[in-house]
């Protein structure tokens, strides 16, 4: 089966004081039907910019190039009104902060129905019935009453369920979830992750899950893309990333987090230094100033994504010789 999403050489540049700087640099990945792909990295690595670029929600001042093929159609070539038919219909989106994503002055019912009325040729009455049905599917108690309430009357977890109901209302083939549980407490996070897993299983929806939390990645994803400073530094199956990480940044991330199942208390191994700023990218490998294995070539020339095996790629000179 062909891929739901193919991203080819996506570049996003922002204008800062008259100069263009790359926030996303030659990013390519794909998502297969029914698959959950994790996009991981720290703040400023370009993961959210990538997701916004895919659905063309960046401001016009951003320069976006490359191809974003959604079910074979290049989203970057579409006219604005054609793109609007895809958002919320073929591609659903949920963001981190449910309070700022929902409109505070509209009732929950109106916000779900809006999506349905926009994309489906149905009556308001039918849209209402389908909205109640959707709220039921995302596990909202008393859905009939909630339809008549405003966002401020709901808890954070409930709001995120409403966001998921809106995103899933038109049964999209791809769901883009940008830090969907970051603002939630762990027990509520567990509920929402379970819901997303159920949705993916029941509807066959592919998910692009953007997160900084490696625990969430390990639980949810089939494959993982690790980003650093606007580039993909490693890409592989979830097992590749967690059991055979190649790139020093990926390894650093895995070593830096305290483990709740650790037997003995060990000192954390941080990654020294800070993420480079957009305007001051290091020459050569972008991770070289913080890398414990840095050598002279690293500082001169940026490595490409070398294949470790069929599914596993790493942007590190240490992986070069494996390429035959």
């Amino acid at each position, binding site marked *: 089966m062909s891929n739901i999403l193919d991203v080819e050489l996506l570049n996003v540049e922002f204008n800062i004081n008259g100069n263009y700087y790359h926030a996303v640099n030659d990013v390519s990945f794909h998502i297969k039907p029914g698959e959950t792909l994790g996009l991981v990295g720290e703040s400023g690595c370009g993961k959210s910019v990538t997701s916004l670029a895919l659905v063309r929600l960046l401001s016009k001042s951003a320069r976006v190039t490359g191809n974003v093929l959604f079910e074979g159609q290049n989203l970057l070539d579409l006219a604005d009104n054609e793109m609007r038919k895809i958002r919320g219909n073929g591609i659903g989106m949920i963001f981190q902060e449910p309070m700022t994503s929902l409109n505070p002055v509209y009732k929950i019912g109106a916000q779900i129905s809006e999506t349905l009325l926009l994309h489906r040729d149905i009556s308001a009455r039918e849209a209402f019935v389908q909205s109640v049905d959707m709220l039921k599917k995302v596990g909202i108690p008393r859905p009939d009453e909630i339809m008549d309430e405003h966002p401020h009357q709901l808890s954070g977890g409930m709001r995120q369920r409403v966001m998921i109901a809106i995103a899933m209302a038109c049964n999209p083939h791809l769901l883009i979830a940008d830090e969907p549980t970051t603002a939630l*407490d*762990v027990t509520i996070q*567990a509920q929402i992750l379970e819901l997303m897993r159920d949705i993916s299983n029941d509807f066959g929806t592919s998910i692009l899950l953007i997160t900084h939390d490696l625990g969430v990645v*390990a*639980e949810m994803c089939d494959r993982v893309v690790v980003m650093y400073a606007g580039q993909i530094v490693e890409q592989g199956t979830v097992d590749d990333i967690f059991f055979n990480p190649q790139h020093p940044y990926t390894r650093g991330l895995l070593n*830096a*987090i305290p483990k709740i199942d650790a037997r003995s208390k060990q000192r954390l191994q941080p990654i020294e230094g*800070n993420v480079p700023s957009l305007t001051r990218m290091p020459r050569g490998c972008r991770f070289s100033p913080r890398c414990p294995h840095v050598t002279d070539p690293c500082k001169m020339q940026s490595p490409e994504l070398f294949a470790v095996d069929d599914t596993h790629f790493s942007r590190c000179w240490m992986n070069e010789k494996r390429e035959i």
Partner: protein
Amino acid sequence: MSEVLLEVNHLNKYFPLQRGIFRRSAGAVRAVDGISFEVQTGETLGVVGESGCGKSTMGRSILRLIEPTSGTIKFAGQDILALTDSQMRAMRREMQIVFQDPYASLNPRYTIFQTLSEPMEIHHLYHAAVRRKHVESILDRVGLAPSYASRFPHEFSGGQRQRIGIARALMLNPKLIILDEPVAALDVSVQSQVMNLLEDLQQEFNLTYIFIAHDLSVVKHISNRVLVMYLGRMAELASSDDLFADALHPYTRALLSAVPIPNPRAKRERIILRGDLPSPANPPPGCVFHTRCPIAQDICQQKAPEWREVKPNHYAACHLVAL
């Protein structure tokens, strides 16, 4: 570890609710309700719970940044709730706080030197030249170049700002530091730098920490003992090892099972809690957790459970935990 540095007894903080234009009293939000614990010198007490459980209010109440409603707080044997404002201000030399958001907790118009020397000015300590030396030595100690003293907060990254926040807390050489979500706003790679720094400083200055956080892995890593709070009340208190290996309270168990583990092959027996946190303005009768508890019985709806020592040094408030 021997002597008790901080002793909190039946600490309550109720925020009154007022309704209507005449501001009639309409009950109270019981943000902190009957909290008692001790902290020993050199120890780290972790405090965990979900948002709204009262952990931050409790931290601030201990410093009297929020005035507690009732209870006693003894610091180094002295009842600090009996102190006058000026006595309390002097007492805060000994007890400091580090906040979560390093962006909001530094004055953007102050240079780092101004921010760090302000505590010395308030307490009339040292001459100007000594102050500058002291600022530079503390900056160096938290891993920042002494020359950064002349810069402004916006010139720093989140991790560096949190180091400045820690430096500010250290300026007066306190005994106790309350750390309120000190690493929650930081990226993973920087978070571990700050955690290691906190551990080093504790060793070097023999500091006592109250470490408030929602991230259980972080709390487990840094704490000697951990207090679990739910809806303003204590659910469980035990040594860190004991709590994470053998949680007794059903809330603690659910909380632990909900943490995503960064290992795709980890076995998970997840206890998913139904529903949301009840409102602390209108807590459920009996055990406050019974509305979400997977093993609740009739007694839980009727009677609030007592706080008891279930195992040596392992306390829990639950009817159903076997003795």
